[in-house]
């Protein structure tokens, strides 16, 4: 379901973003069809609410359409930009929702979906392999931060770990993840 972020796809994504900047609606349709499954999956993972994810999915692509000029091709791929944008908007909504409904409980098992088997692209397999190489505590802390929007102090409180340990765990875990992705990506190509 997810498209692999191959060099060819990356190249197409950059061209699509340029076309969207030029108000090409067909480019937006192509971009949506290519990336909406991944973004919607991320939104569902963060929000755990289909109605919110539906609405936010439209809003995010609307923002991409309206503010395509905000994308800086020198700072990363379009997909990285979409993921960053979607995560940021979803976390904002999660926090707003938490303020409006203080009794709402956050998911206590943010990693549930991660280890589920999935038959998507090669890139997804590589990412899962890289995550598997992480210490379970490291992986959980990264997911708390990325999917739940928890700060390191909140993660420290939640996991009852010292603040410094949480910081170090997250940073080392991400660097290890990066190195694993590079290694696995190199082997697969």
């Amino acid at each position, binding site marked *: 379901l997810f498209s692999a972020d191959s060099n060819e796809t990356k190249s197409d994504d950059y061209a699509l973003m340029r076309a969207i900047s030029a108000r090409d609606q067909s480019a937006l349709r192509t971009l949506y069809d290519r990336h909406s499954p991944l973004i919607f999956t991320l939104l569902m993972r963060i929000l755990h609410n289909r109605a919110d994810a539906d609405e936010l999915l439209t809003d995010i692509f609307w923002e991409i359409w309206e503010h395509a000029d905000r994308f800086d091709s020198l700072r*990363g791929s379009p997909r990285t930009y979409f993921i960053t944008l979607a995560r940021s908007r979803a976390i904002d909504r999660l926090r707003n929702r938490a303020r409006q409904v203080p009794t709402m409980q956050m998911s206590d098992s943010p990693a549930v979906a991660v280890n589920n088997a999935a038959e998507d692209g090669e890139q997804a397999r590589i990412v899962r392999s890289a995550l598997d190489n992480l210490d379970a505590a490291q992986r959980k802390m990264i997911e708390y931060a990325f999917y739940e929007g928890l700060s390191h102090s909140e993660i420290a409180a939640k996991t009852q770990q010292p603040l410094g340990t949480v910081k170090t765990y997250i940073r080392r875990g991400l660097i290890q993840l*990066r190195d694993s992705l590079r290694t696995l990506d190199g082997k697969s190509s």
Partner: protein
Amino acid sequence: VNREEKDEQIWLFATGALDPAEAESVRRLLAAGDPVDAAVYDDALATVSQLPLAIDPLSPPTQARQKLLERVAINSTRSSPMKKSPDLARWFAGVAAIVAIALGLISYHLFNQLKLHDDRAQATEEKLRTQLTRARSVLAMLSARNLQMVSLASSAPKSTAGGRVLWDKDRNQWHVTVFDLTPPPDGRVLELWFITADQKKIPGGTFTVNAQGNGAMSAKVPADLKNISLAAITDEPPGGMPQPTGQIQLAGKVE
């Protein structure tokens, strides 16, 4: 803050794990534009953006796509300047009409101004051409080898009016200049007369003077005219008369 601490903060920022105050601090750090910081941040973002790939994929609702495309289509229609609203279109049409009328009036005014300037320029050109012709004529006369001068004077008491006739005998032409002459009344002109010894009066042409009483004219002396003894200037009706009818304004004896 050393390099390792900065890197740690940037990685945590990319993951979203910093408190708001710390996150703001990293935003300022990145805004400072250090290329090493930017590279660390880009590296961290590229890494964390891979995380969603590991989640079991879900299909987005079909209506979300439709909703988005409708929103884009509606917005594109609204942002079209002439379709934005009938009022706006009417406003543009009104402004365009006013501008067109204004341009028309300005063009008409400019055309008239140009025509007026052109008429004035033509009149000035004609006047200059006349003056040039006269000046050349005078110059030619002054350089004539056989030149005679006749002084003209007024018979009125205490009058300072006077004039001169330069007679170019080689070309048989008179050049007359007058000064301090009272301008003739409205509807009258001055006329030059060649008067022979036997009192024949032959008209030499008409002319006028300016407000100061100065004027000039040139006249061809008839080839068969002999024995000119007197030059006179009278006031006559416009176009002149075959014989003098008005008062003598100036006269001079031809030696």
